[in-house]
């Protein structure tokens, strides 16, 4: 089986905007995805959550587009849209019927060029409230809701930009001012800090002309401040543990490890390892903990690719009622450590490769996924051609590579273990939104 290769052009406008165009006329639709090279890693103490709050402000209008009119215009054109913020980036995307491409390009250009003309206190206050409710519904009011934030705090030292959650803290959100928003915009929302990918039913010459017309005269920012050095020791050095009381019926362990960065072949090896460990009912952790020993309700293992010093490999296991959580933890860790000691079998590797091939094929069917990946690889690795090499890299991962990556990453002195337990009467586990970023007090060897 071969995944069809994605043909694209890769160029820069004179103001530095990187433009990637990829034609595919199978369906009468086109996707655009613009990545700004700014994420929560660019935030400083006291201003956490800002990159994400800013993303919301980007839908509150610009000089030629009224508040929420962005959504109205895209949907009336039969399109879909959204934006997301993560540690390494912020992106905005639309998928449109192909005859509406120009509208989407114009909308993105108008807010890149003129957002501040429409910015006002009322809209900022409104979106601050919306984001605080997003934080409540996505994290604070959910069982086990803050696990990833705690994991970040354990994996990265307090001064590291991955230490704090992307959603930020309530205090910092409250403190965000119009001046902050304006300064953030002027600094990071410049064409030379963005990659625009256009994928689908498109005439490349026409698309290029439109991009030149709407984006070409937006001034670059010559003074985008470089990020501080984010490099880290590759391993934590000592295991870090925390027990969290939460309003949950079943205990659950979360495991985290510092891992090599996205683009490192060891990271590819970890992704294949994750498939062998926890990818469905044929996987090792599922078979042992859920199916055979019946000590866990569910298991998971996955990796999150990052570029700032380290990625994250993470896993979880929910403890069945009446089972000693320590037993589940031990079994989980044994399976991870075994991967670094004994090679996987030929059959395990072949099954993982075959499934990964299908997943890649499935994902790359869609124009929106292709646009997202092209912008991602261009922004994070300066290498959009990775879209065509990634599958080959997974398939090149052999037993030796898995063994080496697992031995290096999945070891006790590189491990964080968070154990959520049912709250006792004294502390009922109620989260009040004020506890984030202060969670590394239980660090222990």
């Amino acid at each position: 089986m071969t995944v069809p290769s994605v043909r694209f052009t890769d160029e820069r406008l004179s103001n530095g905007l990187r433009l990637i165009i990829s034609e595919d006329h199978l369906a009468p639709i086109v996707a655009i995805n613009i990545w700004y090279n700014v994420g929560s890693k660019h935030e400083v103490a006291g201003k956490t959550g800002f990159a994400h709050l800013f993303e919301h402000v980007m839908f509150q209008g610009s000089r030629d587009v009224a508040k929420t009119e962005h959504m109205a215009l895209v949907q009336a054109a039969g399109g879909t849209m959204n934006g997301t913020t993560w540690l390494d980036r912020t992106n905005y995307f639309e998928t449109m019927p192909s005859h509406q491409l120009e509208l989407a390009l114009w909308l993105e250009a108008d807010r890149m060029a003129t957002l501040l003309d429409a910015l006002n206190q009322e809209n900022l206050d409104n979106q601050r409230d919306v984001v605080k409710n997003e934080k409540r519904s996505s994290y604070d009011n959910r069982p086990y809701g803050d696990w990833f934030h705690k994991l970040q705090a354990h994996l990265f030292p307090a001064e590291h930009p991955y230490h704090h959650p992307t959603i930020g803290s309530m205090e910092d959100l409250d403190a965000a001012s119009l001046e902050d928003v304006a300064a953030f915009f002027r600094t990071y929302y410049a064409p030379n800090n963005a990659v625009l990918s256009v994928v689908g039913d498109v005439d490349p010459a026409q698309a290029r002309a439109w991009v030149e017309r709407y984006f070409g005269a937006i001034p670059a920012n010559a003074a985008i401040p470089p990020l501080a050095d984010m490099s880290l020791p590759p391993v934590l050095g000592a295991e870090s543990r925390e027990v969290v009381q939460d309003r949950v019926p079943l205990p659950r362990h979360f495991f985290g490890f510092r891992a090599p960065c996205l683009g490192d072949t060891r990271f590819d090896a970890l992704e294949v390892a994750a498939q062998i460990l926890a990818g469905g009912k044929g996987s090792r952790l599922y078979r042992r903990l859920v199916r055979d020993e019946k000590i866990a309700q569910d298991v998971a293992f996955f990796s999150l690719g990052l570029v700032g010093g380290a990625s994250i490999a993470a896993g979880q296991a929910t403890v069945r009622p009446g089972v000693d959580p320590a037993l589940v933890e031990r079994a989980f860790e044994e399976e991870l450590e075994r991967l670094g000691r004994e090679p996987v079998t030929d059959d395990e590797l072949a099954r993982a490769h075959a499934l990964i091939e299908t997943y890649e094929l499935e994902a790359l069917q869609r124009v929106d996924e292709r646009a997202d990946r092209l912008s991602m690889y261009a922004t994070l690795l300066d290498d959009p051609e990775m879209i065509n090499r990634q599958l080959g890299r997974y398939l090149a991962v052999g037993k030796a590579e898995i063994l080496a990556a697992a031995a290096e990453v999945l070891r006790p002195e590189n491990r964080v273990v968070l154990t959520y337990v049912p709250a006792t009467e004294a502390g009922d586990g109620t989260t009040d939104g004020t506890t984030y970023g202060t969670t590394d007090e239980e660090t222990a060897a």
Partner: protein
Amino acid sequence: MTLEQILAERPSPGQPRTYRFPAFERAMLPSGLQVLTVHVPGRPLVSANLVFLRGVGDEPRDIAGATVLAARAMTEGTERYPGVELIEAAERLGATLHVEASWDAFVAAVEVVAPRMEAALELLAELVERPTFPEQDVARLRDERLNDLMQAKADPRRRVERAFGATIYAAESPYSRPSGGDEKSVPRLSPDALRKAHASILAPDRAALIVGGDLTGVAIPSLAERVFGSLGGAAASLTPAGAPDATSAVSRPIVRFYHRPGSVQTELRIGHVGLPRRIPDFHAVAVMSAILGGLFNSRLQMNLREDKGYTYGVGAGFDMRRGAGPFAVRTAVQTAATVPAILETLSELRRIRETEVTKAELAAARDYLVGVFPLRFETPGAVVGALGGLFVHELPDDELSRYRDAIEAVTIADVQAAAREHIDLDRMAIVAVGDADAVAGELDSAGLGEIEVIAEESPVTAGDDAANESDEEGE
């Protein structure tokens, strides 16, 4: 021109490319199994769904949960492939097997590249026809389901969904229960109960094999005959599927508030028993729902989110099943905004009934539903899923190809008629999970109807709720 002048000029759309919903072919095997084939050129990944017109909604109450549990247990081993061997065999093909029981249907599906399709379909047939339901695996899955029910109670979103179903539907309706069964029925689910559920599902003349993708050079009907020709040969006398009971339990406005002390938000579901899929004004309901709570800039969203900032998001709509599924407004709001958010929601529900929507609102909803239609069907998997819907709801073959014209034809009067007919303030149930103490006074004085506050249960000891309830599974 300056940049300012360039941007001040809004672009106008180009000429739309002609779009037609992919044409499909129908065949019928001697057994009565229907075979629907849709050739989508350039799509090497093929989706095949074997859809049985029997779902959770058709299940007798005493074995509630058997259909969902059977679906889970079917990948736990078959006669030829005991234990995980079936899954391993599929993985070697790079095929993803998936079995799911929804309210309306039972679907066994596989996704695989075209050259390995025959081998993958053989595994699908093995899984569907010869599952063994081993005692120890069934016992494990049963425990997992009971644990999951316990976990669901601790999650405000899952808890409110279950409570909403239990509130609006009478106990005799299957929709009042979680689709995977509840604390009372699940412990009774023996391997024999699953075998019985499985046998009642398998009937070739109530089933369709739907295959989509680049099928160049593959004759699906003859392949289907080879692989599925003997499917369910021994099936007993069949009763028509019919529509599950959807009796309402609510006849006046009520509030049911599940107390969860310290909750920073209140999860809200506001609604009543809604509509089945097969209704004459389906397209008018779609447009009305989009305006009320479907579009990003829907009335509810513009009010509760963009004006008041009470919530991260609010949606509303009809979950249409073979029987009348629920109509619900769904949101989570900061605790202090609970009562104001309920009042704003009710006022929007009243407004869409009492006054006509504007021309601009009508156009926004129609243009969205018509324009986004081709985006929804970019991949064969989505097309196959939609054809499954046609089969399950016994809709005409041209239902999807005429969808866009039917939406275009909806008028302002149609929208108002749909709202008046299908949204009923007089039996609106307001179901909440949140800190009842924090809003008690406000709630009492708001005049929302009869209020019942359900005291907190400790999640650790959470056992039987008095009511039968329904959660989000299988929808």
